[in-house]
């Protein structure tokens, strides 16, 4: 087949366009992230802002470098379609807010070069780039990736100012103990491994509180669950994502959590603890709904979402790591081609297997 004709200026219909574009789509997702991000800056101060900025810049920088090395001619258009920026932003949302500068740079490299460009660039990657980077960082550098700080709102006295923030960001000094804190999932996991069950550990003085408004330690994407949820609802409202994937993820997480908690509350966290902890909200609305790495069809997306939710619960409950969202997403990403292969929409005039429908018996006139 001569595919030259495909790249020629299109002459075929339609001669009108709905006006949607990749840039517009990416922009809307970024807008949905703004409230949670701003709130994160306020909660965790300047270091968090520097981390966010550098993660995005490093993603853009590695994207430009990769495009140049591959000899892509339209570097500017591809660079500013918003996809690399969004990857960086999402990655920053999952990092500990006071992580040092090199985490941002290494993360950007892994996300863009290994997670995306190696597969062929935008639209070709099998795994979610932000999650690839997150998991690679967590496995390679477990210490800086699990050091959470207690929120020190910018207005509070103890909060580091601009210069201090820069120092914390650039020198990766060990954090003072007073500021360090464990996330809820990490804390309960540690306590459970010490033989202290949930009833006692959560009743203890050092137990992290569960908070809808995010006054607790965790990443940006974790602390402001409510704002993330709001952003997700906005995306559903403007039609960027459909509600099926997030609902399936949350259901996949909540259903086993509810069963477990009702059977044995000493060993299984409650539904609200699961839904408000870790990357549950961010994962459900922003990560699992990634176009490229999720299935095509609504039914496929429901299977995909349920898988992520269930796997997250399994890893959180039985796995070695306190949080499993990133692993669950990557595992289900790998299954996406399989899901797409088996779950296809029914073609009008054909049955589910693709055979033409039977012609009805001729009716008597």
């Amino acid at each position, binding site marked *: *087949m001569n*595919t030259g*004709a*495909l790249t020629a*200026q*299109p*002459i*075929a*219909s*339609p*001669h*009108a*366009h*709905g006006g*949607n*574009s*990749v840039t*517009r*789509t990416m922009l809307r997702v970024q807008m949905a992230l703004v409230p949670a991000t701003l709130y994160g800056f306020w909660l965790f101060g300047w270091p968090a802002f520097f981390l966010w900025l550098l993660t995005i810049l490093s993603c853009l920088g590695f994207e430009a470098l990769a495009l140049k090395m591959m000899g892509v001619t*339209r570097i500017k*258009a*591809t660079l500013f*379609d918003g*996809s690399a920026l969004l990857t960086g932003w999402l990655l920053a949302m999952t990092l500990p807010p006071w992580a040092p500068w090199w985490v941002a740079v290494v993360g950007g490299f892994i996300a863009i070069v290994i997670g995306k460009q190696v597969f062929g*660039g*935008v*639209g*070709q990657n099998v795994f979610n780039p932000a999650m690839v980077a997150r998991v690679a960082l967590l496995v390679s550098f477990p210490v800086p990736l699990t050091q959470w700080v207690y929120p020190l709102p910018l207005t509070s006295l103890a909060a580091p100012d601009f210069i201090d923030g820069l120092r914390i960001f650039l020198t990766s000094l060990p954090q003072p103990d007073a500021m360090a804190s464990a996330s809820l999932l990490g804390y309960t996991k540690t306590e459970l491994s010490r033989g202290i069950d949930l009833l006692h550990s959560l009743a203890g003085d050092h137990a992290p509180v569960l908070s809808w408004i995010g006054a607790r330690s965790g990443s940006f994407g974790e602390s402001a669950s409510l704002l993330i949820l709001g952003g997700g609802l906005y995306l559903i409202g403007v039609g960027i994502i*459909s509600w*099926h994937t997030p609902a399936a993820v949350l259901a996949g997480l909540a259903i086993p959590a509810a069963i477990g908690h009702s059977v044995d509350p000493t060993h299984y966290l409650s539904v609200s603890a699961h839904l408000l902890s870790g990357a549950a909200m961010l994962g459900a609305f922003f990560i699992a709904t990634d*176009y*490229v790495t999720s299935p*095509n*069809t*609504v*039914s496929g997306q429901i299977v995909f979402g349920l898988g992520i939710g269930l796997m997250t619960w399994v890893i959180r409950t039985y796995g070695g790591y306190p949080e499993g969202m990133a692993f669950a997403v990557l595992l289900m990403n790998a299954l996406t081609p399989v899901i*797409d292969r088996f779950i*296809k*929409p*029914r*073609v*009008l*005039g*054909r049955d589910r297997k*693709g055979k*033409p*429908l*039977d*012609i*009805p018996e*001729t*009716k*008597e*006139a």
Partner: protein
Amino acid sequence: MGFMNLFKTFLGNHWGIHPADHKRPASEQPVRRLPLPPRLHLMLSQHVGAPARPVVLVGQKVLKGELIAAAQGNISAPLHAPTSGRITAISEITAPHASGLPAMAITLDPDGEECWVDVERPTNPYALAPDEIAARVAAAGVVGLGGATFPSSVKLNLGRRSHIDTLIINGSECEPYLSCDDRLMRDRAVQIVSGIRLMLISTGARVAKVGIEDNKPEAIAAMREAAEGYGEVVVVVVPARYPMGSDRQLIVELTGREVPSDARAADVGVIVHNVGTAYAVHEAICLGRPLISRLITLNGNGVTMPGNYEVPLGTLVSDLIAFTGGVQGEVAKLVMGGPMMGSILPQTRVPVVKGTSGVLLLDAREAAAFEPEACIRCGSCIKACPMGLLPLEMSAHIRNDDLDGAVDLGLADCIACGCCAYVCPSHIPLVQYFYHAKGDLSARQRNQLRSESTRKLANARQERLDRESREKAEAAARRKAERAAQQAAAMEASSKSGELA
């Protein structure tokens, strides 16, 4: 059933798109009749099937409505003179097609007298026999005026043979910009209903359902009023959604029946005709007038006087534009038909044909051209596809030269409605991909047929040669045996005679 529908909506049964319709203000203008242009060019092939065969000579004078080219073969349609005048040429002119290639046409210079040929008007057209109606429709050159241009009489006969029960009249006009069907229903509803009744008689269907989109309230009211008293003609309001006017989608909407992908509408007891066709049937039967003109929507930002025009077939698009005040501003794209499925015209000196529903002069803002980007697998095209296909997967296979993969995904079911390309945020020309692949597919099928028949011929020849040589050998063996027998007989005879001697 209701629950299932709710469930489907819940799961996202949102086929199709809702493009800005741009129908107003053109649709609000009363129909204007185009004055006779200086010259008409009637394409011999302006319908599905074999081209018409000219039955006039250059220099011959013809009257309005006189047959100038006859149908050829089972699926074809005749042509008639749109006005009285003289035939000045039968030659090639540029066809109204994106390729800009030439095709045969009859050129007619009007004499301005509009002198009608004698026509026969039946006293009671509704008492005609079904096959007589179909025969008259065929003789009048009526074809599907929704754009398909399939000879209407063939469909009427097919309907009678396959015992259809429902006649669907397509008045949905889902293409943006176009309003010729809307206008026709508002202004000539009585004639349309008359045509529908004739088609009911001809097909033997019990009921006719007229599907009109809910964005045409005036047309709905006019058609309801005209259909009053005829219980067999039912006007059904359908939601405005593109491509509601595609026959398979409209059949599901109006009857709940799904046409199997390898079957025709008649196989599920339905036949679909356009409202324009119904009007043409009325004209042909009740007034004896062949199809010589049609309503055309002229629209787009490049048009000075947008509206609907009654245009004689064969009028050059350039004449149409000149008569309506010329071009306004810069025209980026010249389209024949609607913006979703119409084809671009390389120039304006092409004639209007039976299937021309509109001429659009789109400016750069309306016909925005974009640089295609990489697919981000957003799935918009899957949601929009009215056939339930996977446009993004199909295009990926086509781009990688995997025609079989695209066919397995249902390439043949694609109706080229353009929904996928309309919603694509990466501006991928998906329909162009599918046209391209379908072209390759049909070329491959032709080649297969050809090599198949070549192989058959070669096999037959080999068989014949084998048979001939076998027969030769057998004949030779037989002769040899006969000779041996004769010799033996002769020997015996001689030895016997020797014995005797």
